[in-house]
């Protein structure tokens, strides 16, 4: 094994464009797993469809690469069935906020113990450059030759107002911070959101420099416990996108938590069904 290699490396050729910042997310995620002492079998990646959603193929672990837009419900099912797995969703802005918007909304409320990583490139990359929910208004995309008109969806604000207790934004240009955010998110109980600004270098919604000019770490005095100021920062989207941990509160009770506790965290696969005796009694 070379120096850079790690437990999570796998020999599957990538379908991403060479040099895509998705690789930064991939490598950072692998390193974060390693840093947390996780092993491939401890992890279950769940994704939908899109460039982002191909990530699970490039990491050695369990994965379920499902339908476009449906990663969160699948992951919720996984988290319900096996609380011992570290369930991580890796998805795109189209996958998660477009087709999957309703699940996003309700996952925030339901609070399954999942780390949600959104590769936010403000575009539908795999289908060749259409606008996504996070595309800024006025930008030209494949199906908007005259520019989009709708304002972008604000995932951080949506998460904060919906009860999510871990809301962060990363940037592929700042992998050190990204690693910190991933590790913090992975250890947070309940749903944690890391929306990652991920420039697409092929469809180029913007040149790389554009992102670099705008990405700024949250000011040092930002207090992630302060929901109101987190929300205010999240609403600032025009010229700067602040990166870092916007909001973190004490974890709320996680989805299915009391059921897991009652079953001593036994995976459902190992649980018994209703006994014949009890069945007979109930059928009387």
């Amino acid at each position, binding site marked *: 094994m070379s120096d850079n290699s790690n437990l999570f490396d796998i020999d599957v050729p990538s379908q991403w464009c060479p040099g895509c910042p998705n690789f930064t997310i991939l490598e950072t995620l692998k390193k974060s797993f390693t840093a947390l002492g996780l092993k491939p079998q401890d992890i279950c990646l769940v994704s939908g469809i899109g460039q982002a959603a191909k990530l699970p193929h490039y990491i050695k672990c369990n994965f379920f690469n499902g339908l476009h837009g449906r990663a969160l419900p*699948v992951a919720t099912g996984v988290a319900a069935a096996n609380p011992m797995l570290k369930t991580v969703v890796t998805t795109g802005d189209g996958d998660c906020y477009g087709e999957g918007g309703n699940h996003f909304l309700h996952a925030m409320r339901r609070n399954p113990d999942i780390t949600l990583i959104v590769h936010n490139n403000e575009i539908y990359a795999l289908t060749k450059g259409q606008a996504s929910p996070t595309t800024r208004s006025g930008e030209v995309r494949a199906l908007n030759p005259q520019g989009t008109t709708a304002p972008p969806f604000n995932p951080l604000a949506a998460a904060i107002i919906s009860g999510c207790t871990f809301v962060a934004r990363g940037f592929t240009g700042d992998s050190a911070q990204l690693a910190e955010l991933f590790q913090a998110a992975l250890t947070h109980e309940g749903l944690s959101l890391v929306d990652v600004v991920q420039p697409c270098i092929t469809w180029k919604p913007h040149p790389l420099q554009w992102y670099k000019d705008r990405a700024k770490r949250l000011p040092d005095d930002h207090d992630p416990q302060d929901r109101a100021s987190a929300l205010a920062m999240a609403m600032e989207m025009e010229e700067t996108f602040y990166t870092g941990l916007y909001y973190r509160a004490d974890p709320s009770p996680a989805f299915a938590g009391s059921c897991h506790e009652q079953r001593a965290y036994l995976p459902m696969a190992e649980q018994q069904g209703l006994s014949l005796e009890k069945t007979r009694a109930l059928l009387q």
Partner: protein
Amino acid sequence: MGEWSIAAAGTAGQGVQTIGEVITVAARKQGYAVFSWKEYESRIRGGQNSYRIRVSEDPKNAPVERMDIVLALNMEAAEKYGFLVKRDGLLLAPESSNKNALAMDFQALANESAGKKIFANAAAAGALAAAMGMNPQGVKSELAARFTEKGAESVAGNESAFQAGYDHAMALCKERRTPSIPDRDQRPEALTNVHEAIAIGAAYAGCRAIFAYPMTPSTNIIGQMAARWEDLGVFWEQVEDEIAAINMAIGASYAGARAMTATSGGGFSLMAEGISLAGMTETPLVIVLAQRPGPATGLPTRTAQGDLQFALNAGHGEFPKIVLAPSDPKEAFHLTVKAFNMADKYQAPVIILTDQHLSDAHFTQDIHPEESEPEYHLARDCENPPYRRYAITREGISPRMYPGQSEHLVCADSDEHDESGHITEDLFNTAPAMAEKRLRKIKAMEREIPEAFTHVPSKSEIILMGWGSSGNALFEAAEQLTQEGRRTGVIHFTHLWPFPELPPLQGEKLFSVENCAFPQLARLVRQETGLSFTGSVLRYDGLPLTGTYIRDLILESL
């Protein structure tokens, strides 16, 4: 020996449900088999609904068209349901409207006897018990049992009103031929319901989780799981939409849990993509599709069998699936266990078709759980490492492990994939081989599909073919027709896909009998066998098929 058919009808909130239930339980305690069903409007209060009860010595688990007695709690109900009364039957209603009607002012009776009009339904229950010739003590004590919680005053009021209604009707009924239901020294079989049997069957079959969105008439399945959580032990979650429901169930199942969902037509439509996902990822999944008349919202509280072809073909692309359809709680229980077993073994979606009628009907029928056994097919370990989730095998079935079970990684993919679960673009070998592998499972599945249930006496002139919910009605129609000199057989499908074998036929006239408007079973049978039908008996007014309905239409079309 005889049998009696009764309907209690009135506005939602007027106590029809209570009357139906106490009569049902009391008749059972007197030693009788009861079959009951309901029909009601899609609203919370108001409208006119009815509760139908069939009382017999031996179980007669099918609805009938006409009633010996109709109890109408108000005059609109009398208007709406009066036609149900048999020629020599009886209509009990607040006012008299025709020669078969007995007028009894239930409210006045209640007021006189118990001081309050709200006891009117107790008076009506008393009148019904009298008209039926039931043991009044039995009904009365059932009534009392239901109101003890509300206090002694309520119990006493109900009792007085009941007695007043009973006495009044006894006096009036004397001259009339009425049913008679004397005590019998016999315990009937259990009172069971199809969706309850599915919920209990699922728990017995090892189902650990249900994810569903409310939709009539499927809601009572997750409802059972929620209400009987302590007993059944199945984790349940009401979700944001049906797409979430099926994808969560798939996620849980991928993670090793036996999981299910339940819905009705509209929700099932929304699940089509998820069904295809289960097909591609080879994830076991049980879906109950409780039918109601469509298209779209249709008649939300009524019954139909209009989703057969859709269920058979739901989901884009080609993949094996299994479609089952019980006609009663016993079949429902055993088919549910089979559904979980087959889903697990063949790693495929299984659809169980029910409908509003089955959802709301109660049958007299014992279920013997030991006749089915949960079989588990998760691989306990990997025999030939490295583990490949989609290893190509002779029968098409790959060993399935769950994520976290061991160091063997479980990789599932909705794209076309290689044996290890990774996306493939290899059109020469991998992609077609995977398509073949998946479809090969159908051959193996077919071995577990029994021949269609067939009862065709030799020299039959007619064969009635039906499926699912209409089972008992088919047999009653065949019996009636045979008695009337038209020897008639029955082929009834509880397994619809893979399509079962049919016995060799002898040129009988074939009729499909379907609770829908555009023959779907007939098309399926023709597609699979080439057989032609003489005709179809179709019912599409939102009500269940009955023996008489079928018989009448067969005779018309001969």
